[in-house]
């Protein structure tokens, strides 16, 4: 099946350009880009000058399989992703049980492939049971298709265990993803410390816990030479350490969640638990500094940190409520806030949302180029709508954007040259 996308605004994150043109999708790949006319047998889709970009590669999505399918299944996450323009989900291993053996990985890989309309690739746990004591079978897990290794928010506290896992991962070229938070300082925290935390009487964590976490990890990276990605850098004070590490030639990249770029600590307001995240939302100065770091390329990746939580786990006093927010479907409209605010251009956004994560994980996706996989999103960056959380495809509806005015609608999503979503369906 050949698809001809006519008259689209082409967002190219590699060349950092946006130009009008046509695209031919054939055999799962982008066959041609330019001014050519439609091939004889092609299905023609008129794009009316709307934006066509590489599909989002979302690095760090929690899916409730195995263990918490009532919160999110591969099917529901896949539908949400398709509706949100996410064509590759990089799933987290913080499941129950954790994805820490090749057998579990093979099981979830098979379940994902038969259930979801988008690509799902898996990260595996760095230590068995995410308990920070023994490294997992990194070699076997790589062979079984793991794209990276992380214990997510269970920080490996024993530096000897971590240094061995990093050294071993290095020998295999595996990417290790850290969660830079000093576990002692951040223990029990529900918000970022400061005036707001004190006013609300909630236990806070200093932004310094993030810098200490990153400093520690970077020292071990310098020691072992492993490939490292920090999942979320959210504070201004962490940025110089990251910049120094990159300048010194360490193989280090960093990400940030879309929520930390679009919201700040005051959004929690009167104890609104849908705004409780890991790490907690930060001060406005931090948000702006991190946004600058994305624009400059110091922070490489924007991810959704999609974390489904059911109503019961959120309808609790703030300290006891679950952390995390769903974001697969709100990722792109939230990112459009940054575009409309003039903070980031569309090519800059898709560099961080598609190109960089794909490159870092060694995937061919994330590019708008001939020969690249035909994973694309067609969207209107200006289309306004009011977000109703009960219309989300995710099984869990815990979005902080409920009831908010958003701009940016996905019109169509293509995965491997097949249309998997069309607006209005």
């Amino acid at each position, binding site marked *: 099946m050949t698809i001809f996308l006519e008259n689209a605004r082409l967002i190219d994150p590699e060349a950092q350009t946006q130009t009008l043109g046509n695209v031919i999708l054939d055999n799962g790949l982008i066959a041609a880009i330019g001014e050519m006319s439609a091939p004889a047998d092609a299905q023609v889709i008129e794009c009316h000058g709307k934006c066509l970009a590489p599909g989002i590669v979302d690095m760090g999505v929690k899916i409730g399989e195995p263990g918490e399918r009532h919160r999110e299944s591969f099917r529901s996450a896949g539908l949400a992703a398709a509706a949100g323009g996410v064509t590759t989900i990089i799933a987290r291993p913080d499941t129950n049980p954790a994805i820490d053996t090749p057998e579990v990985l093979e099981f979830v890989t098979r379940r994902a492939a038969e259930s979801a309309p988008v690509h799902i690739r898996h990260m595996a746990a760095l230590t068995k049971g995410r308990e920070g004591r023994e490294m997992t079978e990194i070699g076997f897990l790589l062979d079984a298709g793991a794209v990276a290794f992380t214990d997510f928010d269970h920080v490996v506290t024993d530096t000897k265990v971590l240094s061995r896992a990093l050294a071993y991962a290095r020998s295999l070229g595996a990417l290790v993803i850290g969660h830079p938070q000093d576990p002692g300082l951040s223990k029990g925290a529900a918000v970022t410390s*400061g005036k707001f935390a004190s006013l609300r009487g909630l236990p806070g964590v200093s932004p310094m816990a993030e810098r200490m976490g990153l400093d520690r990890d970077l020292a071990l990276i310098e020691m072992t030479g492993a490939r490292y990605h920090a999942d979320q850098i959210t504070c201004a004070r962490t940025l110089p350490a990251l910049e120094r590490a990159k300048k010194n030639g360490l193989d280090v990249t960093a990400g940030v969640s879309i929520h930390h770029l679009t919201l700040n600590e005051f959004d929690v307001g009167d*104890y609104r638990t849908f705004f409780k995240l890991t790490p907690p939302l930060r001060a406005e100065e931090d948000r702006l500094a991190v946004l600058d770091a994305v624009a400059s390329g110091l922070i490489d990746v924007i991810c959704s940190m999609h974390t489904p939580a059911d109503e019961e786990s959120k309808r609790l006093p703030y300290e006891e409520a679950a952390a995390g927010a769903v974001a697969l479907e709100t990722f792109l409209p939230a990112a459009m806030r940054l575009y409309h605010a003039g903070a980031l251009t569309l090519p800059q956004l898709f560099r961080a949302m598609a190109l960089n994560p794909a490159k870092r994980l060694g995937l061919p996706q994330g590019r708008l180029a001939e020969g690249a996989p035909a994973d694309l999103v067609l969207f209107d960056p200006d289309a306004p709508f009011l977000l109703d959380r009960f219309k989300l495809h995710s099984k869990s509806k815990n979005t902080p954007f409920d009831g908010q005015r958003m701009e940016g609608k996905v019109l169509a999503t293509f995965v491997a040259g097949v249309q998997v979503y069309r607006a209005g369906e």
Partner: protein
Amino acid sequence: MAFRARHLLGIEHLTPEDIRTVLDLADRYVDLNRRTVKRTDALAGMTQINMFFENSTRTQASFELAGKRLGADVMNMAVAQSSVKKGETLIDTALTLNAMHPDLLVVRHPNSGAVNLLAEKVNCAVLNAGDGKHEHPTQALLDALTIRRAKGRIQRLTVAICGDIAHSRVARSNLLLLGKMENRVRLIGPPTLMPAGVAEFGCEVFDDMRAGLDGADVVMMLRLQKERMDGGFIPSEREYFHRYGLDAEKLAFAKPDAIVMHPGPMNRGVEIDGTIADDINRSVIQEQVEMGVAVRMACMDLLAQNLRADRGRQATEGTYV
């Protein structure tokens, strides 16, 4: 009339006019409480439920007495021991109570914000009797009344709040109230017991108690919350008393007519010297207890008036809930 609030969840949302309204009415209830016949019928026919998710003797007794003197039917629910242990969520407990049609719900809970959450789910007036480390509004109001009666005003005073600020909802509510009424507030305590960013509230922060007390009109001591400490905030009780316990020598730095307050229960010899606490010329600690009943009567009276007005409006509009 001022004080249009539906609930009393904190000082944060009150105006200076609201605060004065409560204090003026409370003054009248002080007079009533000193008579032999103490009953009025302001809350006659209404039901008040005291729901304490955290153990309390003094505050609960004060609310119970306040409700009874206003003529309400008062029920105490010892929630700390019952349904919570059976796994019922806060919201379910609230909905169960709501179905019994209370008019006033007095709630204390160990989590900050829990009373706000509960207030969203019930259709009666909710009084916060202390939530976690957030607010304890009636304590701040009774402290204000005590100060106003002792000093003749609740403006332009220098008030020193000393001790475990970080774990204290009393400190937060007092800080907000005293700020709204245009007083100078000083916070005194070791840095480990001082919440982050507190200087941005417009108060002065001291870790030297003598400097902090210098020239103060009011010295407010806080209880060292032993039960909240999971350790490591102070080296020992005796060092704490030496540096931050109120004794005659440190009190001498305050104004000669400075009053000494404490929300109770006191740890004598930890944060306050026994002789200071008992000094009838300086200590107003017993007055605070007396003002507590009057202030709670005033708050419940005002909330009940608003509740009646709300329900009357809804009845005429045909949307009675």
